[in-house]
């Protein structure tokens, strides 16, 4: 099934995957806009804040975070 890659198509996808990675918040925003699910916004904001804490808590600094929360 091996074929010569078609350079134009490959380059197009190649350009796309080299574009900057948006943050999770930006992706959520895009998701809400695209799907018109604005009712999820307060829930997602709260969960994002908790998520940020969770991400920090998953790092090596977790012993300094939770005792002082």
């Amino acid at each position, binding site marked *: 099934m091996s074929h010569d890659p078609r350079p134009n198509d490959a380059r197009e996808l190649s350009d796309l995957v080299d574009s900057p990675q948006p943050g999770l918040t930006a992706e959520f925003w895009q998701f809400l806009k695209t799907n018109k699910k604005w009712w999820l916004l307060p829930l997602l904001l709260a*969960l994002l804040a908790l998520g940020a804490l969770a991400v920090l808590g998953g790092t090596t600094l977790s012993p300094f975070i939770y005792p002082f929360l």
Partner: protein
Amino acid sequence: MTAILGISAFYHDAAAALVVDGQIIAAAQEERFSRVKNDRRFPFAAIRYCLDEAGLTPGDLDYVGFYEKPLRKFDRVLETHCAAAPGGFRAFARSIPGWLTEKLHVAREVRHALPGFSRRVLFAEHHESHAASAFFPSPFDEAAILTIDGVGEWATATIGAGRGNRIELLSELRFPHSLGLLYSAVTSYCGFAVDSGEYKLMGLAPYGEPNFADDILQHIVDLRPDGSLRLDMSYFDYGHGLRMTSEKLHRRFGGPPRPCDAPLEQRHCDLAASIQKVTEEVLLRMARHAREQTGLRNLCLAGGVALNAVANARLLAEGTFDDVWIQPAAGDAGGALGAALLVWHQLLEQPRTARTGDSQRGSRLGPAFRAEEIRACLTQQGAVFTELPDEAAVCRETARLLAAQKVVGWFQGRMEFGPRALGNRSILADPRNPRMQQQLNQQIKFRESFRPFAPAVLAENAAEYFDLPAGRSSPYMLLVAPVSESQRVAVTVPEPRGLARLAVVRSRIPAVTHVDFSSRLQTVDEERAGLFATLLREFRTLTGCPLLVNTSFNVRDEPIVCSPQDAYDCFAATNMHALVLGTFLILKEQQPRTRLPTPSTPSAKRPRSESALLAGSTWIDSARPASPRDLRIFGVGLLIVAGVLGIVSLRSAHWPWFWGSLAGLWSAAAAVFWTVPRSRASIHRCLNCLSAPLNSMLSLAVLAVIYYLILTPIALCRRCLRRDGRPGGTSVTYWQQRPPNGTRETYLQQF
């Protein structure tokens, strides 16, 4: 060269697959390396193996594809919690931490696994990955595609079409209405682990009568003529709670769910037979609808339900399609392969030529081990072994042992990708022995006594032993076939009831003949499995029998072995008589007693009785070892905290003794940390463990606030305004049309 890595993770059966210039180079499930059955964690080890197999570094990869869209799935999870509010806090608190800490951070995990790979990850849809894994390796130029599993993002089953190098999904069923989850719910009710016990239920079905099938179709499932279905969710709890089934279903089925260690009753056998009958009916109707919708003559199948070999065989026998090809890794592991192939064919628009051969390469896509590695392992174990001169000698000697009624562990070449051992990581035995089935179940595999074994038969002899339709083969053990009349023997004893039926000799190959004369067979051919075929021919020469019992090389609730060490450990811990590792032969009777543990059942691990759908996660992975960089940051943190506490203690008017003691403790920890380098990891681990309970309590409190003060009011408002998307009455069809394929940009999005 274009190298594409596909990844599946976080639900069950995480895996990685590598496709280079359209060729499948390597694929493996994480469980084989981590030794955790159905390991769902990000597949770091499987990724490392795939790259090593191709001799690539992360920087050599061109694309990484993930098998589903996390944000869309998260949307489904939140909507499900909203539908359950305010009564589902426990399920909410169980599922959300996993989402916030890992499942929404696929790009981050990819960066950790692939240092040097800086491009964006491409996200396919869950069922699109299944469809790609079914169609692209298939031998068809064009085919209808049917994917059925528990649930992906929202879809639980899809119908699509594959033509050339493109697939398109046309219609879908949506969560919570799912054939896969219905089957899993009954699996759970019968006391087997969801996501891994479904095939046990399938094996249990022939012991029962489908007495509950009409009941299921009348009260629980609204099944339409086109195979679309809607479940009465009052019978299930997977959308709301921590169980698969509700009290209402327990009442209808005549009692509470069976605990996993309780004896099986005839009722459970009847339920297994009933859900099997319903599954077959749904699959057949879906297949007919797929044929009508696409007009195509061949079918590709994937998704966990496609592992139901009995239903697959009925589908083939029905003749709706001229031919059917089923992805051997039909479960979520295969999604990794599908994601990689989708990028190559659909996104890069690389042409595809359907092969007459096997693009899946016999599914032998995992690691192989060199003779030196095997020898080193055996030497380290102090094993007594013989090195045979060549493969011909290996097959001759193994066949002789098998003919002498020995049970042999057979470890050769590359490990299989998918749930079945196909003759490279197998336990083999003589199928003619009427006691072999019981011996294998109780002394080797330590598993339930009712479970049948599968035969591996030389493809050229398959028709002599099994009623396999002409021209059909079953190289991936994904079809059952009846044992042919010529091999059956008259049953001279009265037919017992229930599970005792398995002890009755029904054919000349009793160890692989189920109580209904069916066998889940593997046909072995030279192209896919040359060495295994040679072994079968040697066995045929010695005994006249061209087939063997082929069961996976593992014990109950453990993954199939991957490495020589795994194989030796399994051999040592069971009553297996011999182990063949490449050209090395190890006989149990020759091993020094002191080197072998007493064979025993595996540790009494309770199988998971919950679905991955309901599985929870913790916030902190305290088992993960800290890197030197982590430790340095941690040390700096210690100093800062000690300093801050010192200042507070000096300035505090209240409780200066308390703040002083606290500052003293932190300063002491910081001093030890920086002066005794060997203590660093221990101090880090210790403080991590101490903070874990606090973390649990605080996060639970925060989650409760979010659930009751934010989610529940939103859910109640939506319910009052009838915006909660609850379905109306019955409909002619429950299939929903899907939008056309997205542009390439949509594959960058996680939704």
